[in-house]
């Protein structure tokens, strides 16, 4: 995940800003002046705040989409093609924030990762970016195998080794598919586990982050196993 999301946090803690409209001088709302409706300069903001949402994880997907469309209609550069260069630049900045925010919040996993980052919690080794980088560079990523998966992971690695050496015959294909089905079922139950952690967080339990990190780490581990199987089967 990129640093762009950290940037938001730093500025959030930054100095107090003037909230007067550049155009009419009135006090303004977040994106547009409440009085004259003009778009306001883009300021670094966290993605929940951009949508005027509390930092909670249970999200009304349809509502988020509606808000995304409504803000797009008002902020998009298409709407400002006849406006001043200054407003065009703000529209571009604001729309990129809007799109970045929507992309991050609409996906349950990236939303969870983003919240953890806002809370100062690093997912480091298991995060998507770390996985990608390690994969690309061919470096073996340090990762702790979740205890309950030790035996299964060991067996799977034997199968994958076999596939690498001698190719995938019918029998091996069957075994890999069965293993994959088991892993997929487990991934599914993790969604419920994550939901449970969300509920705790939204209810004010700050310890829920520990559960979230645990679920995300295990999920990422399982996900990588599934990916390895898919590659062997291809």
């Amino acid at each position, binding site marked *: 995940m990129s640093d762009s999301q950290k*940037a938001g946090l730093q500025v959030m803690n930054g100095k107090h800003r003037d909230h007067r409209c550049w155009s009419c001088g009135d006090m303004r709302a977040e994106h547009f002046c409440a009085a004259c409706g003009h778009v306001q300069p883009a300021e670094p903001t966290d993605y929940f705040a951009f949508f005027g949402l509390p930092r909670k994880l249970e999200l009304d997907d349809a509502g988020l989409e509606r808000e995304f469309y409504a803000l797009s209609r008002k902020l998009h550069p298409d709407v400002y093609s006849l406006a001043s260069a200054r407003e065009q630049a703000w529209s571009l900045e604001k729309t*990129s924030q809007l799109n970045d925010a929507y992309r991050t919040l609409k996906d349950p996993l990236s939303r969870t990762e983003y919240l953890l980052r806002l809370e100062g919690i690093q997912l480091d080794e298991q995060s998507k970016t770390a996985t990608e980088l390690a994969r690309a560079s061919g470096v073996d990523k340090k990762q702790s195998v979740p205890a309950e998966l030790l035996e299964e992971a060991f067996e799977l690695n034997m199968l994958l080794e076999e596939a690498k050496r001698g190719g995938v015959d019918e029998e091996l294909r069957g075994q890999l598919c069965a293993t994959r089905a088991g892993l997929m079922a487990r991934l599914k139950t993790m969604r419920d586990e994550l939901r449970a952690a969300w509920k705790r967080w939204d209810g004010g339990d700050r310890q829920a982050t520990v559960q979230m990190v645990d679920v995300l780490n295990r999920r990422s581990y399982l996900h990588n196993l599934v990916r390895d199987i898919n590659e062997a089967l291809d």
Partner: protein
Amino acid sequence: MADDRVVGIDLGTTNSLVAYMGTGPTLAHPDEPGKGVFIIPGEDGSNLVPSVVALDHDNHMLVGNAAREVLLTHPERAVYSVKRLMGRGVEDVQAELKLFPFRLAEDLAPGEVLRIQLGERSYTPPEISAQILRQLKRNAERFFGAAVKQAVITVPAYFNDAQRQATKDAGRIAGLEVLRLVNEPTAASLAYGLDKKQNGTIAVYDFGGGTFDISILKLQDGIFEVIATNGDTHLGGDDIDNLLIAVAVADIAGDLGLDARQHPDLVQRLRRAVIDAKIALSSRPAAELEVELPDGRLYQRTITREMFEQMIQPIVARTLEPCRQALKDAELTVAQVDEVVLVGGSTRIPLVRRQVEELFEREPHSELNPDEVVALGAAVQAKILAGGSAETKDMLLLDVTPLSLGIEALGGVTAKIIHRNSTIPASATEHFTTGVEGQTSVAIHVLQGEREMAKDCRSLARFDLKGIPPMPAGLPRIEVRFLIDANGILHVSAREQRSGKESEIQVQPSYGLTDEQVENMILDSFDNAERDLAERQLIEARNEAETILTALAKGRHNPAWTMLSFSEQRKVDELESRLRLALGGTDYNSIRRWIDELNQATMHLAELMMDAAVGSALRGKNMDTTDVGEGPAAPHPIGKAEFS
């Protein structure tokens, strides 16, 4: 009024078109009411301008059909399919050069923008494209009798940053302010969406002359949200032609003992012949190839549709994988796609239709002419950007970046910072630092593509962050912001955070023209253009005035005239004499003004006449009545051959 005409341009590999979304009927163009969206024809009356540029014997630049004739007789004086070279470096085009008779300039330095030899000069691909754009601009100016300065230009959805930048440069060189680059399949969806206000998921399969795109969109209450896109910027009807030419060349070598490749004009005649055969095979079971060799012998061959389909099957198959990938990226199954729309001349081939139907398990739509629909959509977007109208009020395009953006990290790997299919504008911020004490610059390599190693991705730019205050290694904190704008073009800005000063950074594109180069090209090409324009405007305004006066003379004999009120008639009479007076002088603005006023005053008359004509042979060129659904029998992009 004359300045706000924003046109939509489809700058195609094989053909280019210019379109406009108009507002009301005029008396001078009673059967082209100008209402709705329509294609602006060229001087020769045809909607398609072949994307061919050539030099005539006096070294004048020719564009379109005239240039295509030169291509047949003097192939060394003509350039076609230049879109394939846009935004590419010498090392990218080696495969292309084997198939296309591009003559690169001999003095090309490594890393320099390609230049193509044409006559005594060499031109970059954006300059050649600019010739085509300028022709379209002239066509539009002739049509309006007024200058056209702004345009929306379409590009393949799968175009990378360099190819987009090159297209934008071409617009600038042609004297057009490019308000927006719009992805071709997305533009097509706008044209389709204009009259069918409905919600759902659509797939646009766009198989053109040189490029293939697939885009999957979600339509909701006028919002056109692209969910995923994929494609191949070097796959199109051109490839089918080259395949057929290769077969013919092999035939001629084997049966007639002649190496056709030694005769460029013969190759071009073969090209012409296989294109005709390809088009014929869309509606007939067999077609005849017949080409005269330089020694007078005749090469003849029959191609059946069965043979044709067998030959092109691998090419058509190459379009299917991107479709599957786009569906996967959109997290959709085939059953969740409500409609499939066909765009591009190559979708007239029956095999293509069958394969698309098989893959998506439904019959694809092709109500709008697949050659024109992209330009029509570009005109709709142009209208939106020009302030919109009642029809476009709720329409908004949300497009995506087709390729992931990354930076080269340690060990030559790509670290992705903006993933493909992210809605644009999109941004990412990265932090960099120094590795050596006192280091004052950091090199950054920006990439585009999906591959894991930097060397396998497209290099967009290498630049240095310069002017970093000397500090111990690892202490500077340089924030670099990457922003992909609504055109899909990347902007980079940087700031050193420890010292708090905005540092000056230079972004040097890996391929592409510098601003200064583009400026020089604009100057180069505008030697006489402005003066010419003034003269042309006057001539055209006079012509238009004559047209409207003639139309008015006829209108007075129409029963509709008597339906006007007395004061309406008086007003028309008065404006008529004012226009006649202005015609006596050489003041363009005055003629223009009275044309516009007379147009305005006769609008009611035009409407009454049109109402009366409804049901008769009146056939406007607006969206609702554009030639539709002709299927395989309709002409191909290059089908309207004036010579054979």
